[in-house]
């Protein structure tokens, strides 16, 4: 994982971010209350030291191989590609990881940091519950106390994952403030951390939050892109023509993109949640329709009103239902390296059904946004070209949501 940061000899643009202050251009930084500044510094120092430590890397690699089940396959979706008739589509199968999504790549890494810091308690925020489950899972394995903050609205919508976390020994704390969703869960996790900073490690689930989180979560997720790059070379003898990944906070996307940033021939598309359509304001697409601001410890693109208040978001996928985005994505948008686009709820749902029926793979609704855009993109390309899509999670957790939309009750 951390080789991306430590073994890079290339002094190009992409290996110089974040800078020592945690900034990606004008984005990122450490916008938190003074009480947390020491804890962030301590975390940064420990991480930089461990990232260069061969024993730590071995420990992490062993977990990724034997606990998570890496490497994940790169699968050619032949029938789906044939139907489209354009570029070949390969799926990076993060859905096959233990716990069913890319989230665990990061929680395994951060839990090891917590262990090295001697923290006995971990906390996490969660929206759909995937990061909460991944955190509860690794806490169970390491014998750490675990509390997960989850908006009351999401607790109701995601009852199955709530029970899953309880089975794993975690306590799920419903958050009743604000809009009662992911952003409020993150507020509450920060409040807990500021209160229990001495004995608690906060496992942030995406490439947002204050420095060093956007950097270290990225580094832990880069295993996706490193594998995909090697697998592409091995299978196709060359790099892909395009990469596609969904972007909520953006951790699965940065994990896929980052190891390819220096490869100019590889186009990249980050797909945000268009909800009911960007024109309706009922979406979760800050890079497409937002403006820069400060939230949850970093400067980035946000969905905000004219007074600088954070707006409510909408997406059929709870995991993308967040008004901000990782600061590195904000920077990659501004410098033009990655194209940020949207897929609406209905397009994502259609892609969910298509992949399930044509390939026998049920994707998470989050990942379905990436699939929806990849399908459109492939149609504009030739069969000699190929696209890698990050299939960031499996769709079992979304069966209830899809059934409800289809008017089916159990």
């Amino acid at each position, binding site marked *: 994982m951390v080789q991306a940061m430590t073994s890079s000899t290339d002094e190009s643009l992409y290996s110089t971010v974040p800078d020592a*202050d945690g900034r990606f251009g004008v984005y990122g*930084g*450490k*916008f*938190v*209350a*003074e*009480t*947390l*500044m*020491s*804890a962030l510094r301590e975390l940064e120092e420990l991480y930089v030291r461990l990232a260069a430590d061969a024993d730590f890397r071995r420990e992490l690699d062993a977990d990724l191989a034997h606990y998570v089940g890496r490497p994940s396959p790169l699968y050619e979706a032949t029938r789906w590609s044939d139907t489209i008739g354009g570029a070949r589509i390969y799926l990076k199968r993060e859905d096959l990881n233990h716990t069913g999504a890319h989230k665990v790549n990061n929680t395994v890494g951060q839990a090891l940091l917590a262990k090295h810091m001697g923290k006995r308690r971990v906390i996490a925020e969660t929206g759909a519950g995937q990061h909460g489950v991944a955190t509860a899972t690794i806490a169970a394995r390491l014998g750490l106390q675990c509390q997960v903050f989850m908006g009351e609205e999401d607790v109701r919508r995601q009852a199955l994952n709530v029970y899953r976390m309880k089975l794993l020994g975690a306590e799920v704390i419903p958050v009743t*403030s*604000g809009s009662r969703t992911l*952003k*409020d869960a993150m*507020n509450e996790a*920060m*409040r807990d951390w*500021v*209160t*229990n*900073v*001495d004995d608690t490690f906060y496992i942030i689930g995406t490439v947002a939050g204050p420095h060093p989180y956007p950097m270290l979560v990225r580094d832990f997720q880069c295993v996706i892109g490193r594998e995909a790059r090697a697998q592409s070379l091995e299978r196709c003898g060359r790099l892909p023509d395009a990469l596609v990944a969904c972007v909520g906070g953006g951790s699965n996307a940065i994990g896929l993109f980052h190891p390819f940033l220096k490869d100019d021939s590889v186009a990249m598309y980050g797909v945000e949640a268009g909800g009911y359509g960007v024109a309706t304001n009922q979406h979760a697409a800050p890079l497409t329709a937002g*403006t820069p*601001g*400060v*939230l*949850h*410890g970093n*400067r980035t693109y*946000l969905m*905000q009103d*004219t*007074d*600088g*208040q*954070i707006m409510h978001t909408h997406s059929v996928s709870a995991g993308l239902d967040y008004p901000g985005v990782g600061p590195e994505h904000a920077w990659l948008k501004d410098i033009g390296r990655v194209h940020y686009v949207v897929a609406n709820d209905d397009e994502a749902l259609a892609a969910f059904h298509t992949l399930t029926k044509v390939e026998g793979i049920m994707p998470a609704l989050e990942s379905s946004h990436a699939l929806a855009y990849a399908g459109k993109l492939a149609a504009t390309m030739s069969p000699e070209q190929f696209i890698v899509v990050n299939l960031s999670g499996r769709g079992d957790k979304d069966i209830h949501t899809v059934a409800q939309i289809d008017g089916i009750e159990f």
Partner: protein
Amino acid sequence: MSRIAGCFTRLAEAGQTALIPYVVAGDPGPEVTVELMHRLVAEGADILELGVPFSDPMSEGPVIQLAHERALAHGVSLRDAIGMVRRFREQDDSTPVLLMGYANPVEHMGYAAFADAASAAGVDALLTVDIPPEEAEPVNRELQRAGMDNIFLVAPTTPTERIARIAERASGFLYYVSLKGVTGAGHLDTAEVAERIALMRQHSSLPVAVGFGIKDAATARAVAAVADGVVVGSALIQAMATALEQGGDHAAAMDAATGLLAEIRRGVSAAAS
């Protein structure tokens, strides 16, 4: 000399500690705030701290979170808060007023535009909870240009060498967060506060005000014995919320807040004698 510096100088000469109530602009309703500010001054407030409503007040406990939500339900914005100070200044040109809030509304308005509007309205200082010294240079530049003070937090977790660095950038006073936690938490350790303030005084000549966890005359008195200023927020806001829950109107809510402030004033003044 700024209104804040003048206030602390005058109080120090009189052997008194500054009492600094915190209320949220627009809580419980936008029409209440200016009158409430005047009444708090009448009951012994030396400096007023006006909270700017924000959708995601990450450092606040439940009491002040709800105050932000009530104010936002009335659509109260940073511009509205500045407007309230302007109206307050029509009758009170001497009591210092500082705005306390979060980075995003200020950043969205623009640091320069904010500093111009706020100083023209008679705002004396800004405290942004989530702009630590590392991120403060751009806003500091504009506040200094407009002649405003920038208030910084010092926490129980702030290393000693960092205190001096914070103090270099600060003006007006240093705000010591008395506990690890959110506003309104209940585990204030006054002996530890005394120790930390003594340490801060070795690194800064700025006055030190203490906030978070001060809820009644007794805790105010204990803190006033060692600090230059005492901030009370959650207790006042809870008093107003309770009065409203019991069926009281806005006047009853203000009575509850000012009644509690008068008690706390006696505690603070007793510490001086």
